[in-house]
């Protein structure tokens, strides 16, 4: 090696020597930190901690905020309801089949209470599964003619837990703009890409699907693992109309997307036997991947369920958050739901055929003729949402004094993606059950409906004064002013 040292050319040795000296210099020089200047002293940190003032935990809220004063109902919430001390005819609760005060349902619930007590004291996995739950699941599956059903203990949590169980980050969901709040929460929890299409507009949906198809062709590898879903409601709670299910099924097979159908309002109401919008349109139920509904409207119990093929539903038993991590439905409520199903099966005639006529100038009826719950909306708006709400509130109060109970449709204004215009809900379908048990009531059900109509007409005449003519509310104009992006 020493010989190689002597044989090497001079410039080589000099170069190597300079390099070695440079390395030694770098090794011993002080390291240069880029954020040297940002290091704070202890005293500065203490000062920052002293100075920091947080916002109050909740913003102060005025005592006369419109949604603060609840109407207090004393007594059972059935056809005749006592609100704030006054007895009214109930046009406001979603009691579509009138099963809220059915004697058979109550007796079954009582029998179940005497056997099981009230609560289940555990989630489904840990001794919280009762034979009533298993029976209700099999009955629901049989009623809806699907393979399997799964029960949740809270209606809101049903679709909000079902969507994130299947759709994860990177998947794509096409949703109708008028989807209800629980669907929106489910979408938010799933962290997928959400694409909204205009309400009930199949061309818009097809356009979005075509765009997605083009994207897929550019990147086929990614497309092979990206799941795509369409989420629609059978009967929309915000606009009281139905989705065009046959066209959706055609789009499903054409573009290979799965359909999730939310049937809270239409279960028990639409279709010949009450099986919902699939029976109404005559669509094969196997074509829909998942049907979710809550049992709090027609079935007059508490909770919700999803039904479909075993391949789809079984997955939720381990990954549906509201199913695995929450206590199960109290058995008496499950027993009440079973009895309500029995009644529905025995007597498929208790459906809704409601009154659909233009009530009066000044108010507009929103909804399809066979919908059980309709919205009454102001024809012309005064331009500000608050004053519109106040106007409607006055109408509702006036009607309550005349013994007709209506209710303002409530929304969380800042949280809704597409805020529906102010309106109130008229559950016109309620009277269908009166036709069934009119022998119990002294007055004729049509009489009561007429009373309702008269009160609302009078209210509108007295209260809806001539307002300056502004553009009618529609969903698009609401977007620009009020939408707050809640994406993560």
């Amino acid at each position, binding site marked *: 090696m020493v010989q190689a040292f002597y044989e090497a050319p001079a410039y080589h040795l000099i170069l190597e020597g300079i390099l070695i000296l440079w390395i030694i210099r770098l090794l011993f020089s002080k390291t240069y930190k880029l954020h040297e200047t940002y290091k*704070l002293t*202890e005293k500065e940190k*203490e000062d920052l*901690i002293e100075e*920091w003032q*947080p*916002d109050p*935990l909740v*913003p102060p809220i005025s005592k006369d*905020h419109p*949604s603060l004063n609840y*109407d207090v*109902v004393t*007594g*059972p*919430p*059935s056809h005749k309801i006592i609100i704030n001390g006054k007895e009214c005819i109930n046009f*406001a*609760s*979603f*009691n579509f089949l009138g099963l*809220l005060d059915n004697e058979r*349902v109550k007796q079954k619930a009582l029998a179940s*209470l*005497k056997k099981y*007590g*009230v609560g*289940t*004291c*555990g989630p489904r996995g*840990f*001794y*919280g*599964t009762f*034979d009533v739950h298993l029976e209700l699941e099999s009955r629901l599956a049989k009623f809806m003619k699907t393979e399997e059903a799964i029960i949740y*203990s*809270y209606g809101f949590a049903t679709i909000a837990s079902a969507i994130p169980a299947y759709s994860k980050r990177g998947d794509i969901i096409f949703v109708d703009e008028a989807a209800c709040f*629980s669907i929106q*929460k489910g979408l938010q929890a799933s962290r997928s890409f959400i694409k909204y299409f205009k309400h009930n507009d199949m061309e818009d949906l097809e356009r979005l699907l075509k765009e997605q198809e083009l994207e897929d062709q550019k990147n086929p590898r990614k*497309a092979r*693992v990206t799941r*795509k879903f369409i989420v629609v409601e059978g009967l929309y709670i915000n606009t009281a109309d139905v989705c065009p299910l046959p066209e959706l099924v055609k789009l499903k*097979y054409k573009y*290979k997307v*799965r359909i999730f159908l939310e049937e809270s309002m239409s279960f028990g109401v639409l279709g010949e036997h009450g099986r919902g919008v699939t029976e109404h349109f005559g669509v094969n139920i196997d074509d829909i991947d998942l049907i979710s509904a*809550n049992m*709090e409207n027609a079935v*007059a119990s*508490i909770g919700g369920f999803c039904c479909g*093929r075993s*391949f789809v539903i*079984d997955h939720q038993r381990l990954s549906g958050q509201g199913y695995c991590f929450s206590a199960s439905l*109290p058995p008496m*409520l499950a027993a009440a739901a079973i009895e309500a199903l029995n009644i529905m099966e025995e007597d498929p005639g208790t459906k809704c055929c409601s009154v659909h006529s233009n009530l009066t100038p000044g108010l507009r009826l929103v909804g399809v003729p066979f919908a059980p719950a309709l919205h009454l909306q102001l024809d012309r708006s005064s331009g500000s949402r608050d004053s519109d709400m106040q106007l409607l509130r006055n109408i509702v109060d006036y009607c309550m004094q005349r013994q007709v109970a209506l*209710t303002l*449709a*409530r*929304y*969380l204004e800042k*949280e809704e993606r597409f805020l529906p215009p102010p309106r109130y809900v008229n559950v016109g379908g309620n009277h269908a059950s009166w036709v069934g048990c009119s022998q119990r009531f002294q007055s004729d059900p049509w009489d009561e409906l007429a009373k309702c109509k008269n009160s609302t007409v009078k209210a509108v005449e007295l209260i809806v004064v001539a307002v300056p003519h502004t553009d009618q509310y529609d969903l698009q104009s609401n977007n620009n002013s009020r939408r707050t992006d809640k994406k993560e």
Partner: protein
Amino acid sequence: NRFPLDRQHHGGLYKRPFVESFEETPMLVAVLTYMGYGILTIFGYLRDFLRQWKIERCHIAREKEEQRDFVPLYQDFENFYTRNLYMRIRDNWNRPICSVPGAKMDLMERASHDYNWTFEYTGRVVHDVINLGSYNYLGFAENTGPCAESAAEVTVKYGVGVASSRQEIGNLDRHEEMEKLVAKFLGVESAMAFGMGFATNSMNIPALTGKGCLILSDELNHASLVLGARLSGSIIRVFKHNNMQSLEKLLREAIVHGQPRTHRPWKKILIVVEGIYSMEGSIVRLPEVIALKKHYRAYLYLDEAHSIGALGPRGRGVVDYFGLDPCDVDVMMGTFTKSFGAAGGYIAGKRLIEYLRSHSHSAVYATSMSPPVVEQIITSMKCIMGEDGTTIGCERVRRLAENTVYFRKRLREMGFIIYGNKDSPVVPMMLYMPAKIGAFGREMLKRNIGVVVVGFPATPIIESRARFCISASHSRELLDKVLGAICEVGDVLQLKYSRHRIQPSLVRPFDDSVYEDIDD
């Protein structure tokens, strides 16, 4: 001036000794557990291979024929654990019962002829299985007695459903009475109740925090708290389980550096903790958390799902257990499912509830609680408070505390590794190895005792455990019987891993337990 980080000063905050232990996993056991999982994984791949090549019959549900060319709904590897490990011991979970979930229950007998892929019910009922799995801390899961009778009256009078949300027309007078009672029970200004405990967290945390806020949450928080924090849109930072130094470090860093990248000051900081952690059996170090919160001006959200009714001399939860002022906790949340034998959750606090009444997702969109459930809550709460004129409530609280201390002490003496605080009625006993999870559940069922076993993913992969929930309705004889059975099964399965041996002594005062290390 600086807030002290060392332990000595914190001792002054506690009025009674805080004894928690999480014994380390013995090395040999850890190695064997990993080996066990490795063998199971290899067999899992083998079985998947056989199933794919149709050598083995496949029981898994398949996609519809017409939808074969759709993008697959599930990825194969997502369900690997479910197909190959969970399926083998699936009979330990989802056991259906057909009686009240009290101290003893009736199980429906199930049989499986294809290794747990499908179950059939033989029609027979196994009677009087001792129930160590239901969250029945104060024994209110009963179908006789004053609670059941008043619930029955209300069912006949009001019916079962409500069919409307709180803000519309579903606000019954019983709801308002219940909320006032809950506020009085906890010692706060006002309270609000919701129909589901899980939904209480996931719908109200977004109403309290939003963008620009920080949530500091414990490592082992429940799924509902995690979901609520995610839905709110705030930044979430996780501190080590029950570790106050970690929490303080995060607090200091957060306030000093502000929001990430923009360095703007945070709008609010919310610390989210639970009263009792149900998988570990540990109790939150509430005095220290409150001291930290006051010093750094953060807000505290306390989830008392398991601890309300179960801790404290008067049964008022973890705040009562430490003897603190309920006004110090900004948001107290809890559920009615566990100690009250009903269903639902509540949030209570000062100056908070008016805002939630108008802005909570549940009040606007979700149906209100069912009347008989509300009645059960009212009656059981009055019983615990002693307002119904009897001392049943006090008795039960006292008996639960005694049962807990006795059970834990005896299990420790036998040599099992038990996690958690000495006063928590949730008793996790370590099993570690995957085969022992299934074996323990089945052996105990043979001896007519129903227990809950938990494994991955609810716990870290090598720390699977059996979890006992003590109840006030368990008598001393019942506990002795159970302890005898556990000891027997522990010997058969070799579960007595503990290296510390406590001197079993009857007269020794509690603080003085002597630990004697055994030579390996």
